[in-house]
């Protein structure tokens, strides 16, 4: 099958999946659909039906880079300063501790597991371990969206989960971008070799320039066509430039998203354009990730995978609980809100794909850990969120029901007492006086 036709079919499948399977499963079964496309990718790939050849996967590299950039900007766009300053500081404190703890614990555990399992010096295991640590921090916002809709979440526990997911995205993308800058070995043709800090600055600079260009482009106009052209061009340019320099497209696009969110008058219109492409691109990414997956039955892989899964789950569940207990916030958000962060999704796959497409050590192991995590947690992400928030929301819901009942009862009594109120023509106090 020709590569372009295959891409069309993959995109069509992703498109149908977005609007049929995703909504249906989400509404009826509280399941976040997506991970099954990873399995479908494996079935289409060189290890099963061979419908997608390794050459075809390589031909899709620009789409993969674009999708990584798209996930990056989608993670950065919600970080709108005007909205963030209204959130209590304790929510950030809890999220930051949970995120950093996950990064540190997973990176340390995986580094020692890789060094032990593959008999390599610890130094050699650092880059993959830190990259996996960064990937481990990411948690999918899809669970919260499916469980409680994507509107404003006023309940403290939902807000805490939302803030933590945003913080996870920030830490994950930033840490991954720094690791990629650290692992950068290519020497520029015309200037001296750059330091890690300089490469990080270059990555951030690409994002800032991308956001600025978008602004200059848009000016005062808000026509959807102009918006689409300039946003599309800016994302492609930003992701492409970062990929060309072997830096992280996700970080560059993330910075661009933050710049846009905080400088635009109406970021909602940009978010709308972003959402149009986000899920189909995620499914394409999942299918390609599945097709390019090279799992191994070697027992040592399982050791690394076990470390990843166990340490990540522990730090998400216990780390968040301990941080909450220390800050005395258990009254408002409970000790179990970390369950809402167990699900992994779009960002995890994007970062894992970004790692795998480079010539970096243990790429297959890293990719396997991330893919397995998405495979086993994304389906239930909404249920995890529900289980974290439901006990705290139950009294609130009960209160709402009781309040509604009282209001209804009062209204009914008033209507019976003063029938003319029903038509909205309330009598004056003089009229009511006998």
């Amino acid at each position, binding site marked *: 099958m*020709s590569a*372009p*036709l295959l*891409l*069309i079919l993959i*995109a*069509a499948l992703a*498109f149908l999946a*977005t*609007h049929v399977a995703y909504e249906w499963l989400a509404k009826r079964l509280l399941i976040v659909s997506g991970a099954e496309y990873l399995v479908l990718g494996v079935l289409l790939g060189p290890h099963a039906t061979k419908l997608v050849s390794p050459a075809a996967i390589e031909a899709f590299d*620009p789409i993969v*880079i*674009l999708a990584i950039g798209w996930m990056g900007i989608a993670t950065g766009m919600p970080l709108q300063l005007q909205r963030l300053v209204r959130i209590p500081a304790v929510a950030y404190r809890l999220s930051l501790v949970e995120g950093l703890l996950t990064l540190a614990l997973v990176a340390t555990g995986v580094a020692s597991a890789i060094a032990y399992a593959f008999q390599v010096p610890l130094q050699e295991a650092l880059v993959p371990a830190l990259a996996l640590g960064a990937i481990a921090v990411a948690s999918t916002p899809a669970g919260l969206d499916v469980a409680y809709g994507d509107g404003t979440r006023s309940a403290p526990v939902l807000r805490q989960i939302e803030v933590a997911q945003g913080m996870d995205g920030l830490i994950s993308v930033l840490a991954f971008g720094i690791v990629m800058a650290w692992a950068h070995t*290519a*020497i*520029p*043709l*015309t*200037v001296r070799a*750059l330091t890690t800090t300089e490469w990080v600055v*270059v990555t951030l600079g*690409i994002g800032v*320039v991308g956001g*600025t*260009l978008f602004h*200059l*482009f848009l*000016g005062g106009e808000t026509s*959807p*066509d102009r918006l*689409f*052209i*300039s946003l*599309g*061009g*800016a*994302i*492609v*340019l*930003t*992701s*492409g*430039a970062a*990929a*060309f*320099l*072997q830096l992280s497209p996700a970080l560059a696009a993330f910075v661009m998203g933050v710049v846009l969110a905080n400088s635009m008058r109406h970021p909602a219109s940009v978010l709308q354009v972003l959402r*149009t*492409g986000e899920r*189909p691109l995620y499914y394409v990414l999942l299918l390609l990730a599945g097709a390019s997956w090279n799992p191994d039955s070697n027992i040592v892989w399982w050791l690394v995978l076990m470390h990843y899964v166990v340490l990540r789950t522990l730090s998400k569940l216990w780390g968040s609980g301990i941080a909450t207990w220390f800050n005395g916030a258990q009254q408002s958000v409970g000790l179990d809100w970390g369950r809402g962060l167990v699900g992994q999704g779009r960002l995890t796959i994007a970062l894992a794909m970004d790692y795998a497409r480079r010539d970096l050590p243990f790429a297959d192991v890293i990719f396997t850990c991330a893919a397995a995590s998405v495979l086993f947690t994304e389906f239930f992400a909404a249920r995890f969120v529900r289980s974290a928030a439901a006990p705290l929301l139950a009294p609130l819901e009960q209160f709402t029901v009781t309040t509604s009942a009282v209001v209804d009862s009062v209204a009914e009594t008033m209507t019976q007492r003063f029938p003319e109120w029903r038509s909205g023509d309330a009598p004056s106090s003089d009229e009511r006086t006998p």
Partner: protein
Amino acid sequence: MRRIVILLVLYAVMQGIFLLGSAESGVPTLMLFGFLILAAYSVGELATSFGLPKIVGYMLAGLFFGPPGLAYVSKPVIVELAPVSNLAIALIAFLAGAELQIAEIRARGIGILKMMSAELVLCFVGVAAVIALLRGQLPFLASAPGTEVLAFSLLFAAVAVVHSPAATIALLSETKANGPLARYTLGVVLVMDVAVVLIFSAVLAAARALVPPTDGSGGVQMGTVLWEIGGAVLVGAVLGLFVALYLRFISRELFIFAILIALLGAEIAKILHVETLLTLLVAGFVAENASGGHGEKFRHAMERAAAPIFVVFFALSGAKLDPASVLPLWTIVVPVVLVRMLAIWGGTTLGARWAGLDPVVTKYTWYGLVSQAGVAFGLAAVVAEVYPDRGEALRSLLLATIAINQTVGPILFRVALKRSGELKSTG
């Protein structure tokens, strides 16, 4: 001023990124794709302040950043971005088909056919005559026997009669013009586009009979031509019906659906060896006329999807131009371009009077028919393939002519729309 600042920022960014690139970085196709969208769009906006159509700006950007200029967009990048051009052609064809409503064909069909046929005859004969008369200027024809002169003159004329649906659709989208002049011009361009497939195939067969190719290959069989056209109608109709059903019963996410349909149509046409343009044209026509009034929303979605693709398509067309090749051939290129314009003017005027059309249509339609682009490039490549030795020289001549028509054509069409009062937006 803002556009100039954007271009300067883009220039600085590209310089900086290329400065930091390493030996292992490879070809930055994706980055240059994004760069072309932004840079060409800016130049396009800048062009409107000089009263030029945006697509001329896009092409100028391609010329400036392409191999003849700064060479950011190198030849390998142009090759790698070829799928974007194919997608653009597919979108253009679908949009063109969707513009044709049955009621309009009934009302304007006869007038369009009369103008097209008169213009076709005059243009074909005029251009062939010029080539035959000026053969002394062409090294590969100067001492050739009469049959060869006749064969190559006819081949050249068969490519010269082609118009540019891409430029016409892009300009109409840009200006939102929808009056009689715009509709007649579009009609002639589209009908000619279908007719030219038949004409070119017939002329190529005649040329092969007069001057057999050295290796005896590369010809076009009648059966192949029939399948290319008949198959395209069939495949296009099926695709159009599918789109119509989708629009009637689902009608969601039209933006992504539009891109998928254009890609799918182009790919199916390629696999089944049918005419891509005609396939998408028929698909657009069927979808528009069978969707029970849902077509307009889909057309708008497709126009949105096409906007950035058009920008890159025309920028790539500009990058493919080679101004240096025009100069040595100017003694023959200029007369050919002038005679072609004269023939188009004469033909459309004659045809419009024959059909008793509005004086505005009679006077200005020819302005919109000067452009040439993608189809002409493709036909020139076929000639070069069939006659590798002399065909290449003929191709250079064709490309030089197309370069001028491609640049001047959109400007003339815009002038015509303005003078006729159909230019609603200055872009």
